[in-house]
Protein backbone atom coordinates (compact mmCIF):
# COMPACT_ATOMS: atom_id res chain seq x y z
CA UNK A 1 0.00 0.00 0.00
CA UNK A 2 2.77 2.43 0.96
CA UNK A 3 4.92 1.53 -2.03
CA UNK A 4 1.89 2.10 -4.24
CA UNK A 5 1.40 5.55 -2.75
CA UNK A 6 5.09 6.37 -3.15
CA UNK A 7 5.06 5.20 -6.73
CA UNK A 8 2.09 7.40 -7.48
CA UNK A 9 3.74 10.40 -5.85
CA UNK A 10 6.90 9.79 -7.89
CA UNK A 11 4.82 9.67 -11.05
CA UNK A 12 3.15 12.99 -10.29
CA UNK A 13 6.49 14.65 -9.50
CA UNK A 14 8.01 13.30 -12.72
CA UNK A 15 5.05 14.57 -14.73
CA UNK A 16 5.21 17.98 -13.06
CA UNK A 17 8.90 18.35 -13.94
CA UNK A 18 8.27 17.17 -17.51
CA UNK A 19 5.46 19.68 -17.87
CA UNK A 20 7.73 22.68 -17.24
CA UNK A 21 8.91 23.22 -20.84
CA UNK A 22 5.32 22.69 -22.03
CA UNK A 23 3.83 25.34 -19.79
CA UNK A 24 6.50 27.91 -18.97
CA UNK A 25 6.87 29.42 -22.47
CA UNK A 26 3.19 30.33 -22.65
CA UNK A 27 3.02 31.55 -19.05
CA UNK A 28 6.20 33.52 -19.53
CA UNK A 29 4.89 35.02 -22.76
CA UNK A 30 1.72 36.23 -21.08
CA UNK A 31 3.52 37.49 -17.98
CA UNK A 32 6.22 39.32 -19.94
CA UNK A 33 3.73 41.07 -22.17
CA UNK A 34 2.83 43.24 -19.16
CA UNK A 35 6.43 44.15 -18.36
CA UNK A 36 8.02 47.46 -19.28
CA UNK A 37 10.69 46.88 -21.95
CA UNK A 38 13.50 47.56 -19.48
CA UNK A 39 12.43 44.61 -17.34
CA UNK A 40 12.33 42.03 -20.10
CA UNK A 41 16.08 41.45 -20.13
CA UNK A 42 16.45 41.86 -16.39
CA UNK A 43 18.92 39.50 -14.77
CA UNK A 44 18.07 37.44 -12.87
CA UNK A 45 14.74 37.26 -14.72
CA UNK A 46 11.49 37.44 -12.80
CA UNK A 47 8.30 35.83 -14.00
CA UNK A 48 5.93 38.52 -12.80
CA UNK A 49 6.56 42.23 -12.87
CA UNK A 50 6.05 44.62 -10.01
CA UNK A 51 4.97 47.42 -12.31
CA UNK A 52 2.59 45.99 -14.93
CA UNK A 53 1.86 48.15 -17.96
CA UNK A 54 -0.32 47.90 -21.05
CA UNK A 55 2.12 49.90 -23.20
CA UNK A 56 3.07 46.87 -25.28
CA UNK A 57 -0.60 46.15 -26.03
CA UNK A 58 -1.19 49.71 -27.20
CA UNK A 59 1.98 49.59 -29.27
CA UNK A 60 0.89 46.30 -30.90
CA UNK A 61 -2.14 48.08 -32.38
CA UNK A 62 -0.44 51.34 -33.34
CA UNK A 63 2.70 49.88 -34.93
CA UNK A 64 0.81 48.00 -37.63
CA UNK A 65 -2.91 47.41 -38.42
CA UNK A 66 -3.13 44.61 -35.89
CA UNK A 67 -6.91 44.81 -35.45
CA UNK A 68 -7.37 44.43 -39.20
CA UNK A 69 -4.89 41.54 -39.26
CA UNK A 70 -6.83 39.89 -36.48
CA UNK A 71 -10.08 40.22 -38.42
CA UNK A 72 -8.33 38.79 -41.50
CA UNK A 73 -7.21 35.67 -39.66
CA UNK A 74 -10.60 35.10 -38.05
CA UNK A 75 -12.72 35.51 -41.16
CA UNK A 76 -10.36 33.46 -43.33
CA UNK A 77 -10.37 30.61 -40.81
CA UNK A 78 -14.16 30.74 -40.44
CA UNK A 79 -14.83 30.79 -44.18
CA UNK A 80 -12.31 28.01 -44.81
CA UNK A 81 -13.81 25.87 -42.05
CA UNK A 82 -17.38 26.32 -43.31
CA UNK A 83 -16.49 25.48 -46.92
CA UNK A 84 -14.43 22.49 -45.82
CA UNK A 85 -17.28 21.14 -43.68
CA UNK A 86 -19.65 21.19 -46.66
CA UNK A 87 -17.19 19.93 -49.28
CA UNK A 88 -15.68 17.18 -47.14
CA UNK A 89 -18.95 15.88 -45.73
CA UNK A 90 -20.47 15.70 -49.22
CA UNK A 91 -17.47 13.91 -50.70
CA UNK A 92 -16.91 11.74 -47.63
CA UNK A 93 -20.55 10.68 -47.64
CA UNK A 94 -20.54 9.85 -51.35
CA UNK A 95 -17.30 7.85 -51.16
CA UNK A 96 -18.59 5.89 -48.18
CA UNK A 97 -22.25 5.42 -49.02
CA UNK A 98 -23.10 6.02 -52.64
CA UNK A 99 -22.29 3.49 -55.33
CA UNK A 100 -21.14 5.04 -58.56
CA UNK A 101 -18.82 3.77 -61.30
CA UNK A 102 -15.20 4.83 -60.79
CA UNK A 103 -15.65 5.70 -57.11
CA UNK A 104 -12.51 3.83 -56.06
CA UNK A 105 -10.36 5.41 -58.74
CA UNK A 106 -11.65 8.87 -57.84
CA UNK A 107 -11.00 8.23 -54.16
CA UNK A 108 -7.43 7.32 -55.05
CA UNK A 109 -7.09 10.69 -56.79
CA UNK A 110 -8.25 12.40 -53.60
CA UNK A 111 -5.72 10.40 -51.56
CA UNK A 112 -2.95 11.68 -53.82
CA UNK A 113 -4.04 15.14 -52.73
CA UNK A 114 -3.40 14.06 -49.15
CA UNK A 115 0.14 13.00 -50.02
CA UNK A 116 1.47 16.06 -51.77
CA UNK A 117 2.97 18.60 -49.33
CA UNK A 118 1.86 22.18 -49.85
CA UNK A 119 5.50 23.22 -50.20
CA UNK A 120 5.68 21.23 -53.44
CA UNK A 121 2.73 22.96 -55.04
CA UNK A 122 3.32 26.48 -53.77
CA UNK A 123 5.70 27.55 -56.54
CA UNK A 124 3.31 26.69 -59.40
CA UNK A 125 0.30 27.86 -57.38
CA UNK A 126 1.95 31.24 -56.91
CA UNK A 127 2.41 31.51 -60.68
CA UNK A 128 -1.21 30.42 -61.27
CA UNK A 129 -2.60 32.98 -58.83
CA UNK A 130 -0.30 35.63 -60.29
CA UNK A 131 -1.73 34.96 -63.75
CA UNK A 132 -5.23 35.21 -62.31
CA UNK A 133 -4.35 38.51 -60.65
CA UNK A 134 -5.03 37.10 -57.19
CA UNK A 135 -1.63 37.60 -55.59
CA UNK A 136 -1.83 39.93 -52.58
CA UNK A 137 -5.47 38.98 -51.99
CA UNK A 138 -6.92 36.47 -49.53
CA UNK A 139 -8.23 34.19 -52.29
CA UNK A 140 -5.23 31.83 -52.40
CA UNK A 141 -5.38 31.36 -48.63
CA UNK A 142 -9.10 30.59 -48.76
CA UNK A 143 -9.36 28.50 -51.92
CA UNK A 144 -6.34 26.26 -51.49
CA UNK A 145 -6.96 25.60 -47.80
CA UNK A 146 -10.70 25.02 -48.19
CA UNK A 147 -10.50 22.74 -51.25
CA UNK A 148 -7.09 21.05 -51.08
CA UNK A 149 -4.71 20.25 -48.19
CA UNK A 150 -6.71 20.22 -44.94
CA UNK A 151 -9.96 19.61 -46.85
CA UNK A 152 -8.59 16.39 -48.32
CA UNK A 153 -7.73 15.14 -44.86
CA UNK A 154 -11.25 16.14 -43.80
CA UNK A 155 -12.82 14.16 -46.65
CA UNK A 156 -10.79 11.15 -45.58
CA UNK A 157 -11.94 11.52 -41.96
CA UNK A 158 -15.59 11.95 -43.00
CA UNK A 159 -15.43 8.88 -45.25
CA UNK A 160 -14.00 6.75 -42.42
CA UNK A 161 -16.81 7.95 -40.18
CA UNK A 162 -19.65 7.38 -42.65
CA UNK A 163 -18.37 3.89 -43.50
CA UNK A 164 -18.85 2.85 -39.89
CA UNK A 165 -22.42 4.18 -39.78
CA UNK A 166 -25.15 1.49 -39.66
CA UNK A 167 -27.13 1.34 -42.91
CA UNK A 168 -30.63 0.71 -41.50
CA UNK A 169 -31.46 4.37 -40.95
CA UNK A 170 -30.64 5.17 -44.53
CA UNK A 171 -32.72 2.28 -45.80
CA UNK A 172 -35.65 3.43 -43.74
CA UNK A 173 -35.28 6.97 -45.04
CA UNK A 174 -35.19 5.67 -48.60
CA UNK A 175 -38.38 3.73 -48.11
CA UNK A 176 -39.92 6.95 -46.84
CA UNK A 177 -39.04 8.43 -50.20
CA UNK A 178 -36.12 10.65 -49.23
CA UNK A 179 -33.53 11.28 -51.93
CA UNK A 180 -29.78 11.25 -51.42
CA UNK A 181 -29.40 14.98 -50.70
CA UNK A 182 -32.13 14.78 -48.07
CA UNK A 183 -30.57 11.70 -46.49
CA UNK A 184 -27.20 13.44 -46.39
CA UNK A 185 -28.68 16.52 -44.81
CA UNK A 186 -31.29 15.07 -42.47
CA UNK A 187 -29.81 11.70 -41.48
CA UNK A 188 -26.06 11.54 -42.13
CA UNK A 189 -25.00 15.02 -41.01
CA UNK A 190 -26.80 15.05 -37.66
CA UNK A 191 -25.22 11.68 -36.85
CA UNK A 192 -21.79 12.89 -37.89
CA UNK A 193 -21.46 15.63 -35.27
CA UNK A 194 -18.33 14.12 -33.63
CA UNK A 195 -16.55 13.80 -36.98
CA UNK A 196 -17.71 17.24 -38.07
CA UNK A 197 -16.38 18.86 -34.92
CA UNK A 198 -13.04 17.08 -35.31
CA UNK A 199 -12.87 18.32 -38.89
CA UNK A 200 -13.87 21.84 -37.83
CA UNK A 201 -11.16 21.99 -35.17
CA UNK A 202 -8.42 20.59 -37.40
CA UNK A 203 -9.34 22.87 -40.29
CA UNK A 204 -9.63 25.99 -38.17
CA UNK A 205 -6.22 25.36 -36.60
CA UNK A 206 -4.67 24.61 -39.99
CA UNK A 207 -5.93 27.88 -41.44
CA UNK A 208 -5.11 29.88 -38.29
CA UNK A 209 -1.51 28.64 -38.33
CA UNK A 210 -0.72 29.09 -42.02
CA UNK A 211 2.63 30.81 -42.36
CA UNK A 212 4.34 29.85 -45.62
CA UNK A 213 1.31 30.75 -47.75
CA UNK A 214 0.67 34.26 -46.41
CA UNK A 215 4.42 34.92 -46.52
CA UNK A 216 4.42 34.02 -50.20
CA UNK A 217 1.12 35.57 -51.32
CA UNK A 218 0.71 38.73 -49.23
CA UNK A 219 2.73 41.92 -49.28
CA UNK A 220 0.42 44.60 -47.84
CA UNK A 221 0.43 44.78 -44.03
CA UNK A 222 -3.33 45.40 -43.93
CA UNK A 223 -3.87 42.02 -45.63
CA UNK A 224 -1.52 40.06 -43.34
CA UNK A 225 -2.73 37.23 -41.14
CA UNK A 226 -1.63 36.89 -37.52
CA UNK A 227 1.35 34.48 -37.76
CA UNK A 228 2.86 36.68 -40.45
CA UNK A 229 2.06 39.89 -38.57
CA UNK A 230 3.78 38.61 -35.41
CA UNK A 231 7.15 38.50 -37.13
CA UNK A 232 6.91 42.10 -38.31
CA UNK A 233 7.36 43.85 -34.97
CA UNK A 234 10.88 45.11 -35.61
CA UNK A 235 12.19 48.64 -35.15
CA UNK A 236 13.88 50.78 -37.79
CA UNK A 237 17.21 49.00 -37.18
CA UNK A 238 15.73 45.52 -37.59
CA UNK A 239 15.85 44.89 -33.86
CA UNK A 240 12.99 42.93 -32.38
CA UNK A 241 10.43 44.84 -30.33
CA UNK A 242 10.16 42.02 -27.83
CA UNK A 243 7.48 43.27 -25.47
CA UNK A 244 5.22 44.37 -28.34
CA UNK A 245 5.75 41.04 -30.08
CA UNK A 246 4.91 39.16 -26.90
CA UNK A 247 1.78 41.22 -26.32
CA UNK A 248 0.61 40.53 -29.87
CA UNK A 249 1.48 36.83 -29.54
CA UNK A 250 -0.47 36.70 -26.27
CA UNK A 251 -3.53 38.14 -28.00
CA UNK A 252 -3.35 35.51 -30.74
CA UNK A 253 -2.74 32.59 -28.40
CA UNK A 254 -4.97 33.22 -25.39
CA UNK A 255 -8.36 33.02 -27.17
CA UNK A 256 -7.38 29.65 -28.65
CA UNK A 257 -6.22 28.40 -25.25
CA UNK A 258 -9.47 29.50 -23.62
CA UNK A 259 -11.56 27.74 -26.28
CA UNK A 260 -9.35 24.68 -25.93
CA UNK A 261 -9.72 24.48 -22.15
CA UNK A 262 -13.50 24.85 -22.42
CA UNK A 263 -13.96 22.35 -25.26
CA UNK A 264 -11.01 20.21 -24.19
CA UNK A 265 -12.81 16.86 -24.17
CA UNK A 266 -14.23 17.30 -27.62
CA UNK A 267 -10.92 18.58 -28.88
CA UNK A 268 -8.88 15.65 -27.71
CA UNK A 269 -11.46 12.98 -28.44
CA UNK A 270 -12.14 14.49 -31.83
CA UNK A 271 -8.48 14.17 -32.66
CA UNK A 272 -8.15 10.68 -31.21
CA UNK A 273 -11.19 9.37 -33.04
CA UNK A 274 -10.71 11.25 -36.26
CA UNK A 275 -9.90 8.02 -38.02
CA UNK A 276 -6.19 8.66 -37.59
CA UNK A 277 -5.88 5.56 -35.48
CA UNK A 278 -4.93 3.55 -38.53
Amino acid at each position, binding site marked *: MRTELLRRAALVVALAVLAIPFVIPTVWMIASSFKPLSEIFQSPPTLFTGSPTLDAYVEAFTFQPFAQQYVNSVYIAVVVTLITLVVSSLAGYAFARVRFPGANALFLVVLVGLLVPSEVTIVPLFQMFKQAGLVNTHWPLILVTALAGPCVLATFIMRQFFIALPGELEEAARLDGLGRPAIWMRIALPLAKPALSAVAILTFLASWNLYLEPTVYLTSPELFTLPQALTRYTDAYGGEMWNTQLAAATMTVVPMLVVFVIAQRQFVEGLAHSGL*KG
Partner: protein
Amino acid sequence: MTATQVNPTTREAADTPPPGPPAVRGIRRPFWTTRRRDALTGYLFVAPQLLGVGVFVLVPVVLAVWYSLNEWNIFRGELTFVGGANYAALLNDPQLPSVLAATAWFSIGVVVLNISLGLALAVMLNRRFRGVTVFRTLFFSPVVVSVVAWTLVWGFLLQDNGGINAALETIGLDGTNWLLQGDTAMISVIVTQVIRSVGVNMVLFLAALQGVPGELYEAARIDGARNSTIFLRITLPLISPTLLLTAILTIVGALQSFAQIAVLTEGGPGLATTVLVYYVFQQAFEFNDIGYGSTLALMLLTFVMLLTLLQWQLRRKWVFYED
Protein backbone atom coordinates in the same frame (compact mmCIF):
# COMPACT_ATOMS: atom_id res chain seq x y z
CA MET B 1 -38.04 -13.34 -42.01
CA THR B 2 -40.26 -11.13 -39.90
CA ALA B 3 -42.54 -8.57 -41.44
CA THR B 4 -40.66 -5.55 -40.06
CA GLN B 5 -37.36 -6.47 -41.65
CA VAL B 6 -36.44 -4.73 -44.84
CA ASN B 7 -35.84 -7.17 -47.60
CA PRO B 8 -32.30 -6.44 -48.79
CA THR B 9 -33.22 -7.35 -52.34
CA THR B 10 -36.05 -4.82 -52.61
CA ARG B 11 -33.79 -2.01 -53.72
CA GLU B 12 -32.10 -4.05 -56.42
CA ALA B 13 -35.45 -5.37 -57.61
CA ALA B 14 -36.69 -1.87 -58.26
CA ASP B 15 -33.88 -1.32 -60.74
CA THR B 16 -34.14 -4.52 -62.74
CA PRO B 17 -37.12 -5.20 -65.00
CA PRO B 18 -39.64 -7.50 -63.34
CA PRO B 19 -39.46 -11.12 -64.41
CA GLY B 20 -42.09 -12.37 -66.77
CA PRO B 21 -42.90 -11.44 -70.34
CA PRO B 22 -40.58 -8.88 -71.97
CA ALA B 23 -41.64 -5.26 -71.70
CA VAL B 24 -44.42 -4.33 -74.07
CA ARG B 25 -43.24 -2.10 -76.88
CA GLY B 26 -44.16 1.51 -76.33
CA ILE B 27 -44.12 1.38 -72.56
CA ARG B 28 -40.69 2.60 -71.45
CA ARG B 29 -39.31 2.30 -67.99
CA PRO B 30 -38.34 5.71 -66.57
CA PHE B 31 -34.76 6.73 -67.37
CA TRP B 32 -34.07 7.93 -63.82
CA THR B 33 -33.83 4.64 -61.98
CA THR B 34 -32.61 4.70 -58.39
CA ARG B 35 -29.24 3.46 -59.50
CA ARG B 36 -28.75 6.15 -62.12
CA ARG B 37 -29.96 8.83 -59.76
CA ASP B 38 -27.52 7.53 -57.13
CA ALA B 39 -24.60 7.60 -59.53
CA LEU B 40 -25.40 11.16 -60.52
CA THR B 41 -25.60 12.35 -56.91
CA GLY B 42 -22.34 10.50 -56.22
CA TYR B 43 -20.56 12.45 -58.93
CA LEU B 44 -22.13 15.74 -57.88
CA PHE B 45 -21.22 15.15 -54.21
CA VAL B 46 -17.56 14.46 -54.91
CA ALA B 47 -17.23 17.10 -57.63
CA PRO B 48 -16.14 20.06 -55.45
CA GLN B 49 -13.48 18.01 -53.71
CA LEU B 50 -12.18 16.53 -56.96
CA LEU B 51 -12.13 19.94 -58.57
CA GLY B 52 -10.12 21.26 -55.61
CA VAL B 53 -7.59 18.42 -55.77
CA GLY B 54 -7.36 18.76 -59.55
CA VAL B 55 -6.83 22.50 -59.71
CA PHE B 56 -4.81 23.02 -56.53
CA VAL B 57 -2.79 19.79 -56.33
CA LEU B 58 -2.59 17.84 -59.59
CA VAL B 59 -2.20 20.75 -61.99
CA PRO B 60 0.51 22.37 -59.80
CA VAL B 61 2.44 19.09 -59.60
CA VAL B 62 2.39 18.79 -63.38
CA LEU B 63 3.43 22.44 -63.65
CA ALA B 64 6.26 21.85 -61.15
CA VAL B 65 7.57 19.07 -63.39
CA TRP B 66 7.41 21.47 -66.36
CA TYR B 67 9.14 24.28 -64.43
CA SER B 68 11.89 21.89 -63.36
CA LEU B 69 12.74 21.43 -67.04
CA ASN B 70 13.01 25.18 -67.59
CA GLU B 71 15.15 28.13 -66.70
CA TRP B 72 13.31 31.14 -65.30
CA ASN B 73 14.23 34.60 -66.55
CA ILE B 74 13.39 37.02 -63.74
CA PHE B 75 13.60 40.14 -65.90
CA ARG B 76 11.40 38.93 -68.70
CA GLY B 77 9.37 36.54 -66.56
CA GLU B 78 9.74 33.84 -69.18
CA LEU B 79 10.60 30.19 -69.14
CA THR B 80 13.28 28.73 -71.40
CA PHE B 81 13.40 24.98 -71.90
CA VAL B 82 16.70 23.61 -70.60
CA GLY B 83 15.94 19.89 -70.30
CA GLY B 84 17.76 18.21 -67.44
CA ALA B 85 19.95 21.19 -66.56
CA ASN B 86 18.22 21.77 -63.23
CA TYR B 87 18.63 18.12 -62.35
CA ALA B 88 22.32 18.32 -63.23
CA ALA B 89 22.49 21.40 -60.99
CA LEU B 90 21.20 19.25 -58.12
CA LEU B 91 24.28 17.05 -58.41
CA ASN B 92 26.64 20.03 -58.58
CA ASP B 93 25.00 22.15 -55.88
CA PRO B 94 27.71 22.54 -53.21
CA GLN B 95 25.04 23.42 -50.63
CA LEU B 96 22.78 20.45 -51.23
CA PRO B 97 24.74 17.88 -49.14
CA SER B 98 24.47 20.18 -46.10
CA VAL B 99 20.79 20.75 -46.78
CA LEU B 100 20.06 17.04 -47.05
CA ALA B 101 22.10 16.31 -43.94
CA ALA B 102 20.19 18.99 -42.02
CA THR B 103 16.89 17.59 -43.33
CA ALA B 104 17.85 14.08 -42.23
CA TRP B 105 19.02 15.18 -38.78
CA PHE B 106 15.98 17.31 -38.20
CA SER B 107 13.51 14.63 -39.34
CA ILE B 108 15.19 11.79 -37.47
CA GLY B 109 15.59 13.88 -34.33
CA VAL B 110 11.97 15.01 -34.38
CA VAL B 111 10.62 11.52 -35.05
CA VAL B 112 12.70 9.71 -32.45
CA LEU B 113 12.03 12.27 -29.71
CA ASN B 114 8.41 12.76 -30.64
CA ILE B 115 7.52 9.06 -30.69
CA SER B 116 9.44 8.09 -27.55
CA LEU B 117 8.26 11.08 -25.53
CA GLY B 118 4.71 10.75 -26.85
CA LEU B 119 4.59 7.08 -25.93
CA ALA B 120 6.16 7.66 -22.50
CA LEU B 121 3.63 10.40 -21.72
CA ALA B 122 0.75 8.27 -22.93
CA VAL B 123 1.82 5.32 -20.77
CA MET B 124 2.18 7.59 -17.72
CA LEU B 125 -1.16 9.29 -18.36
CA ASN B 126 -3.05 6.10 -19.14
CA ARG B 127 -3.59 5.47 -15.41
CA ARG B 128 -6.25 6.82 -13.20
CA PHE B 129 -5.12 9.26 -10.54
CA ARG B 130 -6.14 12.64 -9.31
CA GLY B 131 -5.03 15.35 -11.71
CA VAL B 132 -4.49 13.10 -14.72
CA THR B 133 -6.78 15.24 -16.90
CA VAL B 134 -4.94 18.38 -15.84
CA PHE B 135 -1.66 16.85 -16.96
CA ARG B 136 -3.15 15.69 -20.25
CA THR B 137 -4.38 19.24 -20.87
CA LEU B 138 -0.99 20.75 -19.99
CA PHE B 139 0.98 18.47 -22.30
CA PHE B 140 -1.49 18.97 -25.12
CA SER B 141 -1.82 22.76 -24.76
CA PRO B 142 1.18 23.78 -26.95
CA VAL B 143 -0.60 22.14 -29.93
CA VAL B 144 -3.14 24.95 -29.74
CA VAL B 145 -0.52 27.68 -29.56
CA SER B 146 0.28 28.85 -33.07
CA VAL B 147 3.66 27.72 -34.40
CA VAL B 148 4.91 31.25 -34.96
CA ALA B 149 3.95 32.51 -31.48
CA TRP B 150 5.46 29.42 -29.87
CA THR B 151 8.67 29.72 -31.86
CA LEU B 152 8.99 33.47 -31.18
CA VAL B 153 8.84 32.87 -27.45
CA TRP B 154 11.42 30.09 -27.62
CA GLY B 155 13.63 32.28 -29.79
CA PHE B 156 13.56 34.85 -27.02
CA LEU B 157 14.21 32.28 -24.29
CA LEU B 158 17.14 30.79 -26.21
CA GLN B 159 19.01 34.06 -26.74
CA ASP B 160 22.39 34.57 -25.13
CA ASN B 161 20.83 36.71 -22.38
CA GLY B 162 17.49 34.86 -22.52
CA GLY B 163 15.55 32.87 -19.96
CA ILE B 164 17.15 29.46 -20.58
CA ASN B 165 20.65 30.67 -19.84
CA ALA B 166 19.43 32.66 -16.83
CA ALA B 167 17.76 29.54 -15.48
CA LEU B 168 20.92 27.51 -16.08
CA GLU B 169 22.95 30.15 -14.27
CA THR B 170 20.84 29.90 -11.14
CA ILE B 171 21.74 26.22 -10.87
CA GLY B 172 25.39 26.97 -11.55
CA LEU B 173 25.61 25.93 -15.19
CA ASP B 174 27.02 27.90 -18.07
CA GLY B 175 24.71 28.36 -21.02
CA THR B 176 25.74 29.00 -24.57
CA ASN B 177 24.50 31.09 -27.45
CA TRP B 178 22.10 28.38 -28.52
CA LEU B 179 20.96 29.69 -31.88
CA LEU B 180 24.35 30.85 -33.14
CA GLN B 181 26.14 27.49 -33.12
CA GLY B 182 25.38 24.79 -35.62
CA ASP B 183 24.77 21.81 -33.36
CA THR B 184 22.93 23.63 -30.58
CA ALA B 185 20.82 25.52 -33.14
CA MET B 186 19.68 22.20 -34.63
CA ILE B 187 18.95 20.77 -31.18
CA SER B 188 16.98 23.92 -30.32
CA VAL B 189 14.81 23.68 -33.43
CA ILE B 190 14.17 19.98 -32.84
CA VAL B 191 13.32 20.33 -29.16
CA THR B 192 11.00 23.32 -29.56
CA GLN B 193 9.24 21.51 -32.42
CA VAL B 194 8.84 18.29 -30.40
CA ILE B 195 7.48 20.03 -27.31
CA ARG B 196 4.93 21.89 -29.40
CA SER B 197 3.61 18.91 -31.29
CA VAL B 198 4.10 15.83 -29.12
CA GLY B 199 0.61 16.31 -27.65
CA VAL B 200 -0.98 15.01 -30.84
CA ASN B 201 0.99 11.76 -30.73
CA MET B 202 0.32 11.46 -27.01
CA VAL B 203 -3.42 11.59 -27.66
CA LEU B 204 -3.24 9.08 -30.50
CA PHE B 205 -1.18 6.71 -28.30
CA LEU B 206 -3.62 7.16 -25.41
CA ALA B 207 -6.50 6.18 -27.68
CA ALA B 208 -4.55 3.14 -28.83
CA LEU B 209 -3.60 2.12 -25.30
CA GLN B 210 -7.20 2.30 -24.23
CA GLY B 211 -8.03 -0.13 -27.03
CA VAL B 212 -5.81 -2.85 -25.57
CA PRO B 213 -8.13 -5.37 -23.86
CA GLY B 214 -7.58 -5.52 -20.10
CA GLU B 215 -7.89 -9.31 -19.96
CA LEU B 216 -4.59 -9.66 -21.77
CA TYR B 217 -2.81 -7.75 -19.01
CA GLU B 218 -4.53 -9.79 -16.31
CA ALA B 219 -3.63 -13.06 -17.97
CA ALA B 220 -0.01 -11.97 -18.28
CA ARG B 221 0.11 -10.93 -14.63
CA ILE B 222 -1.30 -14.27 -13.53
CA ASP B 223 1.44 -15.92 -15.55
CA GLY B 224 3.90 -13.83 -13.55
CA ALA B 225 5.13 -11.59 -16.39
CA ARG B 226 7.11 -8.52 -15.41
CA ASN B 227 5.99 -5.01 -16.34
CA SER B 228 8.75 -4.60 -18.91
CA THR B 229 7.83 -7.94 -20.50
CA ILE B 230 4.17 -6.98 -20.60
CA PHE B 231 5.04 -3.69 -22.28
CA LEU B 232 7.30 -5.27 -24.90
CA ARG B 233 5.23 -8.38 -25.60
CA ILE B 234 1.66 -7.13 -25.28
CA THR B 235 1.38 -3.35 -25.35
CA LEU B 236 3.86 -2.57 -28.12
CA PRO B 237 2.64 -5.19 -30.61
CA LEU B 238 -0.99 -4.25 -30.01
CA ILE B 239 -0.42 -0.56 -30.59
CA SER B 240 2.00 -1.09 -33.46
CA PRO B 241 -0.44 0.18 -36.13
CA THR B 242 -0.67 3.51 -34.29
CA LEU B 243 3.06 3.51 -33.73
CA LEU B 244 3.75 3.13 -37.42
CA LEU B 245 1.12 5.62 -38.45
CA THR B 246 2.34 8.28 -36.04
CA ALA B 247 5.94 7.64 -37.11
CA ILE B 248 5.06 8.26 -40.74
CA LEU B 249 2.82 11.25 -39.98
CA THR B 250 5.53 12.76 -37.79
CA ILE B 251 8.33 12.28 -40.28
CA VAL B 252 6.23 13.61 -43.17
CA GLY B 253 5.25 16.55 -40.93
CA ALA B 254 8.89 17.15 -40.02
CA LEU B 255 9.84 17.19 -43.71
CA GLN B 256 7.34 20.04 -44.12
CA SER B 257 8.40 22.18 -41.15
CA PHE B 258 8.85 25.68 -42.42
CA ALA B 259 7.61 28.22 -39.86
CA GLN B 260 9.71 26.89 -36.97
CA ILE B 261 12.91 27.25 -38.95
CA ALA B 262 12.02 30.49 -40.71
CA VAL B 263 11.24 32.17 -37.38
CA LEU B 264 13.85 30.60 -35.08
CA THR B 265 17.03 30.39 -37.14
CA GLU B 266 16.30 31.40 -40.75
CA GLY B 267 18.22 28.30 -41.75
CA GLY B 268 21.38 29.38 -39.97
CA PRO B 269 23.97 29.57 -38.66
CA GLY B 270 25.42 28.95 -42.11
CA LEU B 271 23.37 26.10 -43.48
CA ALA B 272 23.12 24.27 -40.16
CA THR B 273 19.32 24.33 -40.02
CA THR B 274 18.50 24.87 -43.69
CA VAL B 275 16.20 21.93 -44.32
CA LEU B 276 14.88 21.07 -47.76
CA VAL B 277 11.58 22.97 -47.38
CA TYR B 278 13.37 26.12 -46.36
CA TYR B 279 15.85 25.72 -49.21
CA VAL B 280 12.95 25.36 -51.69
CA PHE B 281 11.47 28.59 -50.36
CA GLN B 282 14.80 30.44 -50.60
CA GLN B 283 15.54 29.30 -54.15
CA ALA B 284 12.05 29.95 -55.47
CA PHE B 285 11.01 33.10 -53.64
CA GLU B 286 14.20 34.80 -52.45
CA PHE B 287 16.49 34.03 -55.41
CA ASN B 288 13.55 33.79 -57.84
CA ASP B 289 14.95 30.59 -59.31
CA ILE B 290 11.63 28.98 -60.19
CA GLY B 291 13.19 26.14 -62.21
CA TYR B 292 15.63 25.01 -59.55
CA GLY B 293 13.15 25.61 -56.74
CA SER B 294 10.67 23.32 -58.51
CA THR B 295 13.34 20.66 -58.97
CA LEU B 296 14.04 20.75 -55.24
CA ALA B 297 10.31 20.65 -54.49
CA LEU B 298 9.96 17.51 -56.60
CA MET B 299 12.80 15.98 -54.62
CA LEU B 300 10.82 16.68 -51.46
CA LEU B 301 7.76 15.08 -53.03
CA THR B 302 9.84 12.01 -53.88
CA PHE B 303 10.94 11.65 -50.25
CA VAL B 304 7.36 11.91 -49.00
CA MET B 305 6.14 9.39 -51.58
CA LEU B 306 8.93 6.93 -50.72
CA LEU B 307 8.13 7.17 -47.01
CA THR B 308 4.47 6.55 -47.66
CA LEU B 309 5.28 3.59 -49.88
CA LEU B 310 7.51 2.26 -47.13
CA GLN B 311 4.63 2.53 -44.70
CA TRP B 312 2.42 0.57 -47.05
CA GLN B 313 5.00 -2.18 -47.38
CA LEU B 314 5.82 -2.30 -43.69
CA ARG B 315 2.27 -2.47 -42.45
CA ARG B 316 1.93 -5.98 -43.83
CA LYS B 317 5.20 -7.12 -42.32
CA TRP B 318 5.11 -6.33 -38.66
CA VAL B 319 2.02 -4.40 -37.85
CA PHE B 320 -0.38 -6.33 -35.72
CA TYR B 321 -4.12 -6.13 -36.28
CA GLU B 322 -6.74 -7.23 -33.82
CA ASP B 323 -8.89 -8.79 -36.46
